[in-house]
């Protein structure tokens, strides 16, 4: 992240500000000064001078997007991605903050590694908030020192890539979560039911001769975790990349019972279904897998009705030697940082008629609440000067070869989308500007 001790100010003029927290959805000018939001006023009312001006006429100005779920692959797997390349992709996608997953080599299970990820020499161009490992080496057996990870700057813990399968371990994790107010992020998959599976179980997997993951494998864990979370007042459970209708039912039950349960949904799960897995294209292989059309319908409804708290990409870069192989042998995961906004506007706004303000909420205030990013996810005066400026009407075609990520394993290569990031501002400075 670029830090500057020098005073700097940036005036964003004539833009349409959408800030769900401040309940603003109107033309506003914004003055950013010294890394903070300094002033917000109707057009041409800000009198203070600024070092730099940005004309946002015809554009939406929103709080900087926050991605709760990315794999930056450092330490240890920099052939797939680095913190520098991953955050450059994030900036191009409008994300000013990303939460990076701990399934690196080694796993982020110690305060030292959490600190390492946050060091300036990693070359991050957006804010990076590490998620620590919930158990040692993410083996699911012995819990890590949550408090130490929290102090080192981790915003949550998870064994992502794998579930915390053992019920006692999960109960202990949630108990600690309640004690120190720290979210447990669960990759909900009963792996006993998904051995050797490479896609969703349904007519397509049967036709392709691929072993399928039953949707029950996700729901079973979400269901159990929601019940466990209710046993400890204040325990915080966040369901990562939720993909099935049944799991949504469990989350709704938890929310109704006032449990602190949140969840995220990925763009690929709301844009695609299992029937899009064609010709064994491994860019359509991820975990959780693309689900049935009815699961997708349920996700769309839940994104609209508030059950879902955040859109998160699960950006999972992989090198060609891990992807250009037999489908069943290919690594799970797709990249997603640069296509999230385009897909959200194309699918959720364009086709589902979701208001832009709700999309902005799912990319900003929603995720900020899940991991308590104070002063982010909103542009209230005094907040961090993280801003995303986008053109909701711009039609463009995504070209994976031009991605800023080190890896190009995306199912959306060549997709025509509406809605494009124009500029990304972190701590008051422009870190990305579309050409």
């Amino acid at each position: 992240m670029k830090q500057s001790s020098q005073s700097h100010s940036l005036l964003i003029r004539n833009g349409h500000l959408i800030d769900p927290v401040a309940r603003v959805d109107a033309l506003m000018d914004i003055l950013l000064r010294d890394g903070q939001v300094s002033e917000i006023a109707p057009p041409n009312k800000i009198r203070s001078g600024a070092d730099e001006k940005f004309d946002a006429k015809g554009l939406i100005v929103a709080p900087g997007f926050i991605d709760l779920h990315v794999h930056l692959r450092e330490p240890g797997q920099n052939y797939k991605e680095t913190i520098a390349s991953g955050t450059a992709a994030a900036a191009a996608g409008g994300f000013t903050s990303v939460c990076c997953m701990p399934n690196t080599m080694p796993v982020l299970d110690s305060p030292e590694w959490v600190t390492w990820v946050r060091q300036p020499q990693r070359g991050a161009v957006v804010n990076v908030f590490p998620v620590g490992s919930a158990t040692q080496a993410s083996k699911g057996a012995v819990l890590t020192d949550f408090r130490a990870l929290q102090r080192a700057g981790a915003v949550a813990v998870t064994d992502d890539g794998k579930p915390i399968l053992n019920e006692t371990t999960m109960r202990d994790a949630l108990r600690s979560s309640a004690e120190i107010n720290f979210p447990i992020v669960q990759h909900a998959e009963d792996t006993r039911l998904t051995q050797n599976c490479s896609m969703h179980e349904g007519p397509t997997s049967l036709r392709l001769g691929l072993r399928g993951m039953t949707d029950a494998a996700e729901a079973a864990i979400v269901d159990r975790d929601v019940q466990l979370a209710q046993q400890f007042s204040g325990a915080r459970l966040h369901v990562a990349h939720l993909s099935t209708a049944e799991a949504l039912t469990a989350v709704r039950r938890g929310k109704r019972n006032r449990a602190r349960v949140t969840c995220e949904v990925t763009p690929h799960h709301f844009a695609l279904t299992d029937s899009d897995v064609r010709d064994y294209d491994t860019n359509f292989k991820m975990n959780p897998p693309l689900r049935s059309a009815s699961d997708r319908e349920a996700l769309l409804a839940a994104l609209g009705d508030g059950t879902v708290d955040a859109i998160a990409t699960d950006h999972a870069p992989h090198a060609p030697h891990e992807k250009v192989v037999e489908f069943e042998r290919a690594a799970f995961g797709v990249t997603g940082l640069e296509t999230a906004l385009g897909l959200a506007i194309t699918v959720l706004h364009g086709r589902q008629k979701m208001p832009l303000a709700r999309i902005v909420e799912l990319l900003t205030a929603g995720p900020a609440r899940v991991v308590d990013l104070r002063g982010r996810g909103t542009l209230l005066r005094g907040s961090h000067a993280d801003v995303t400026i986008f053109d909701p009407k711009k039609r463009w075609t995504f070209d994976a070869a031009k991605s800023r990520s080190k890896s190009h394993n995306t199912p959306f290569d060549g997709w025509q989308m509406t809605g494009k990031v124009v500029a990304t501002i972190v701590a008051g400075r422009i870190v990305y500007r579309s050409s």
Partner: protein
Amino acid sequence: MSTTVRQRTTGQQPVTRSAIRGSVLGIEGMPMHEIDRLLQLARKMNPLKARPLLRGKRVLLLFYEPSTRTRASFEIAAKSLGAMTTLILSSGSSIEKGESLLDTAYTLRAVGADVIVVRHPNAGAPHLMARHLDIPVINAGDGMHEHPTQALLDAYTILRHKKKLNGLQVAIVGDLYHSRVARSAIHLFSKVGARITLCGPPELLPEISATLAPGLRISRSCEEAVRGADVVMVLRVQRERLAGLKLSLPDYISRYQITMTRLRLAKNDALLMHPGPIIRGLEITWDVADCPQSVIVEEVKNGVPLRMAVLARALGKA
């Protein structure tokens, strides 16, 4: 033919393309006229009196899984047409050292393969090769997905006994879930307009199997499925792929084994088929396997002319 072994874009993923003409990846995507063409061509193929249509051609047989019939008949088919064949097995080759499927394919292309016949435990492996190669790829069985030449030779076999495939009543009994033969057969029989009944326990024949192709019927009663059938196709219970399924074999035998009593429910002139290998005493009784209606051995025999047709077509010689 181009000598380009492989092309790469700027350090990214290898160039991909659609499969070269003549590739046989599956029945599902094969147009009806191509199926007809191959069946007609097979009729003209006689391994004992064949013209050396493929003289100077190199047929690479790449087998990642065990095979008796498919491998032998592809090899004999190729040699009967005058082609040179080389067999690569996963054991004893660089595959054991970790060479990837694509690199193996590029290597075989580099030594001069004109066509690659591949059997692989992973569904879609031939499709991956075909996307990256400039020579035809023939699927000799990919995981649980398809085994197109088996379905074609079965259709060919039926046509030696029946006037047409359209309208035939076909019962497919056994382990359909794990069977690539079943998937190819289902697509083929559906395309030609046969009436298909699938039969087996839910573990080996999930309800959603009815979605595999238009016009499928599912029955849990062997008697019901076989009654009045023109063709009874029996499939082996693939114990090696059961992976955690709890299936009681005695139960299976009592409900689904094809016995003479059950076979008698089919039409008098019904054909009894089995893609092999057969496990006598499990999915089929000893006497059924050898009964006059059984064409099990004939199927194997017909594999040769059918695969001659496929290879000739793949190499543009028919």
